[in-house]
C-alpha cells in the first residue's frame, strides 16, 4: 500500500534556502530530555531509599524520625522555593532586556540557595559527628546519598548562575545567553521539584 502520489509539475525535489531549524527550540527539547534522564536518576535513588527505609536496614542505628527535622526542613523548603521565585522574577526582567534586573534576581537566588545548603551541610555534619554517617547503616547510606545528590545539583546550579552573572554584562542577551537563562530556569525549577518530593517523602512522611 503506497500512498505516495506520482510527481506532478508542482512537485519539488529540492528545497532551496530551507530555513533550517529553530536552534533554541532544539536546545530546549534537548534540555527537557536531559531532565528526563536526571529525573530517572532520582527515581532510582528514591526507589533505593524506599527499599532501605525500614527498621531492618537501620541496623540498630537511627531511622527517619530520629534523623530528619520537618520544621527545619520547612525553612529549607521556603529557601528553595524563594530561590526559584527570585530567579523567575529575574527572568521577567529579561523580557524588557533589563540586565540589572536579571542579575539581581540571580544574586538573590544564589543567596537563598546558599542558605539552603548551609542548613543541609549543618545537618549532615551533625549526623557525621554523632557517628551516624553513610557507613553506619543501609538506611543512612540511602539518606545521605539522596540528600547529597540533590545538594550537588544545587551546587552545579550555583556555578551555572555565577557564569551567567559574568556572561550577561560581557556578552549581553545573545541567543546563546538567553537560551542558557531559559534552560537554567527549567533546571532550577526541576531541582526545586525534586526537593519538594524529598521533603514530602523523607521529611514529612518519614517523621511521623
Amino acid at each position, binding site marked *: 500500500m503506497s500512498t505516495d502520489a506520482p510527481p506532478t509539475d508542482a512537485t519539488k525535489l529540492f528545497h532551496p534556502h*530551507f530555513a533550517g531549524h529553530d536552534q533554541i527550540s532544539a536546545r530546549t527539547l534537548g534540555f527537557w530530555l536531559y531532565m528526563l534522564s536526571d529525573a530517572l536518576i532520582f527515581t532510582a535513588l528514591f526507589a533505593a531509599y524506599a527499599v532501605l527505609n525500614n527498621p531492618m536496614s537501620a541496623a540498630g542505628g537511627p531511622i527517619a524520625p530520629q534523623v530528619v527535622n520537618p520544621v527545619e526542613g520547612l525553612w529549607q523548603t521556603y529557601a528553595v522555593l524563594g530561590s526559584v521565585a527570585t530567579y523567575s522574577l529575574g527572568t521577567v526582567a529579561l523580557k524588557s532586556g533589563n540586565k540589572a534586573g536579571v542579575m539581581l534576581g540571580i544574586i538573590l537566588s544564589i543567596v537563598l540557595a546558599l542558605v539552603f545548603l548551609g542548613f543541609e551541610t549543618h545537618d549532615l555534619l551533625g549526623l557525621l559527628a554523632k557517628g551516624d554517617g553513610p557507613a553506619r547503616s543501609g538506611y543512612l547510606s540511602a539518606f545521605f546519598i539522596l540528600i547529597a545528590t540533590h545538594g550537588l545539583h544545587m551546587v552545579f546550579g550555583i556555578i551555572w548562575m555565577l557564569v551567567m552573572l559574568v556572561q550577561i554584562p560581557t556578552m549581553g542577551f545573545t541567543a546563546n545567553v538567553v537560551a542558557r537563562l531559559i534552560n537554567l530556569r527549567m533546571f532550577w525549577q526541576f531541582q526545586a521539584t525534586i526537593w519538594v518530593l524529598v521533603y514530602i517523602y523523607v521529611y514529612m512522611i518519614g517523621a511521623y
Partner: protein
Amino acid sequence: MQVAIQGPWSPLFGRLTLASIPYHTPILIATFAGVAVIGLVIVGAVLYYNKLGYLWREWITTVDHKKIGVMYIILGLVMLVRGFADGLMIRTQQAMAIGPNSPGILGAQHGFLPPFHFDQIYSAHGTVMILFAATPILTGLTNVIVPLQIGARDMAFPYMNALSLWLTTAGAILVMLSLFVGDFSAAGWVGLIPLTELPYSPGVGVDYWMWAIQISSIGTTLNAINMIVTIIKMRAPGMSWFRLPVFTWTTLSTNIIGLTAFPVLGVALGLLGADRYLGAHFYTAGLGGNLMLYTNLFWIWGHPEVYFLVLPAFGIFSEIIPTFSEKPLFGYTTMVAATFAIAGISWAVWLHHFFTMAAGPDVNGFFSIATMLVGIPTGVKVFNWMFTLYRGRLTFATPMLWSLAGLFLLLAGGITGMMLAIPAINYSVHDSVFVIAHFHCMVLLIGAAMFAAVSYWFPKVFGIQLDERNGLMFFWTFIAATGIVFIAMFALGFEGETRRLAYIYDPAWRPMLWTEEAGMMLYIVSIGYFARMLYVSLRDRIPVPADPWGTSRTLEFLTHSPVPFYNFAVTPQVNARDELAWRRDHGLEKTQPDAFEVIHMPCNSAIPFIIGMLAMAFGFGLIWRIWWMFGAALLGIVIAVIIRSFDKNLGYEIQPEEVAAMERNLATAGIIAEQPARKPLTEAEAH
C-alpha cells in the same frame, strides 16, 4: 573519610605501586609488546607521512557526524578484536583445563590461566563486547546514517556529539589500561553482588570496571538526547513521521530506551561506588544493605540495554531486505508498531534475569508472561521480513546474506528465549551455558546486523567498493564458526555445564568443549578474511556511484558517494516514504538542484577531546584513589565547559561557487579529504 583498603596507599600515587604493573605475567607482557609495537607503527606512520596535523584538524577535533560515527565504529571494531581475544582465551582455557590430571602451564595448575586471571578475562569479555564493541558500533552507524536518512546537515548538537564519542573512548581506554596497570574486575560483566564489595574484591579491578562503564555511559546518554532531538527537529521538509525510514524509527525507539535506562545503570554503579569508597551499606549483606537492590537496578538497565542493541539491528534488516528484494518493506506500519511495542515491553521484563532468586511463583509467573509478550512483536517482525521476500527479485550481495543469516539466528535465539522465559525450565538452565548460547545467538544477530550495515553503507560513506570476494569468505567462515561453537554450547547446557568455570571437573564435557575450540579457530580465519577485505578495498579503491547497489530506497543514497561533508548541497524535498525508490520509479533520481546556495557549518573544536581525556584522568584518579588527580580532573572538566560557554564562534559559511566546485570534484568534499582553513563568521556577518 577513606575506607580501609588492603595494601599500601600514598597521597601522590594512591594505591599505585610498581607491583601494580603485571610484569610477572607472561601473557600480559606479550600482549603489551604487541600493543606497543602496533601503537609505535601507527604513531610512526602518522609522523612519517606528516599526518598528525591532518588527524588533529580533520578527525580528533571534528564535529562532523559522519567522521564521529566512523570513529565510533573504528573504536568498536578495535574493542571487538579485544573481546574476541578474551573469548578465545576463555574457550582455550576450558578446552585445556579438563579433569584433575590436566596439565598446567604459565603458573596455572590447570590450563594456562590461573583462576583470578581467567575470571578477569570472562568479565572483560562481556563488558567489552556489550558496552565497548556493540554499543559504539551501533551508535556509530546511527550517527553516520540517521542524519543522512532524514536529510539533515548534521546532528542537532554537533559539539555534544563529539563529546559523547570522547567519553566513550575514555571508558574504552580505561578498560584497555587495566590490562597493563593493575587488574580488571573478576566479578562478571554484570558485577555479581556482593562479590564486587570491598571484602571480596579488594583490588582495583571492580573500580576499573565501574568507572569505565560509568564514564562511557554518560557519553551514551548524551548521544541518546542528541539522536532524539535530531530525529524530532531536523527532518527535511516533506519527511512526515510516516515517511521516516524504519532504521530511523528504530534509532528513535532505541535512544528513548537508552535515555531512560542508562541513568538507572549510573545509579546502580554509583551506589556500588558509595559502598566501595565511602563504606556505605547499599548492597552489603550486613548492616542494613540489600544486595537484591543492586540486582534489580542493574537489570532494570540491563534488559532494556538488550533491546537498545537489538532494535537498530532490526532496523538494519528492515533497510537491507527491501533493497535486495527490490520491493518495499511489507507492513511498514505494523513494523513501526512492533518496534515500539518491543521498546515498551522491554521495561517490564527485567526480573527474568534472576528467576532463581526466590521471588515466588506469582512474581516469577508475571515476569514470565511479560517476557513472552516480547515474542509477539518480534514474531511480527520476522513475518514481515518473510513477506518482504515474497514475490521479490532477490539478489545476494553480502549485506543481504548477513541479514538473512541474522533472521535464522533470531529464530534460534527466539525459540531458546521462549524456553528460558518459563521459570520451570529456567530453574534448570539459568546460569548454565545454555543461557550463554541463547544470548550469543542474540548478540551475534546484532553482530550480523552490524556487518550487514558496514558492508551496506561503507561504499556510500567512503565512495569505494568493499571487496565482495573476501567479504563472502568472511561471511561463510563466520557463520560456520557460529554454528559450530554455539550448537556445541547448547548441547553443553543440556549436559549441565554452568557458566564461568576456570576448571572443568567433568571430563564428559570434553568432546563438546573441543568442538567449540575448533569453531574458535574458524573465527580466527574469518577475522583474517575481514582484514583482507578491508586491505583489498583500500588498495583497489574502486569508485561507486551515489547508489552503489542500484536498488536502494532511502534518502542517504540520493547524495553523492563519498558523502560530502555538508551532506546535501541543497536540502532535498521529500515526496515519498521510500524517496529514492520513488524518484527512480519516475526517472528523477539523477535530477540535481538548479543552483547552489550558501552553506553554514559549525567549526571544529578541541574541547570535546580535552574533556574526554580529563574524564579518563578523573576515572584513573578514582580507580587508584589518587585524590589530587581526581580533583584536578573534575575541576578541569568544569573549567573546560565554562570556557566553551564563552566561545563566540558562530561557524563558517561556504559560498555557492565553492559548493559548485566541490560538487564537480567530489573527492575534495569526501570524508578523507582535507578541508582548507575557513574563516569563522563574525557576529556582524551572522545577521
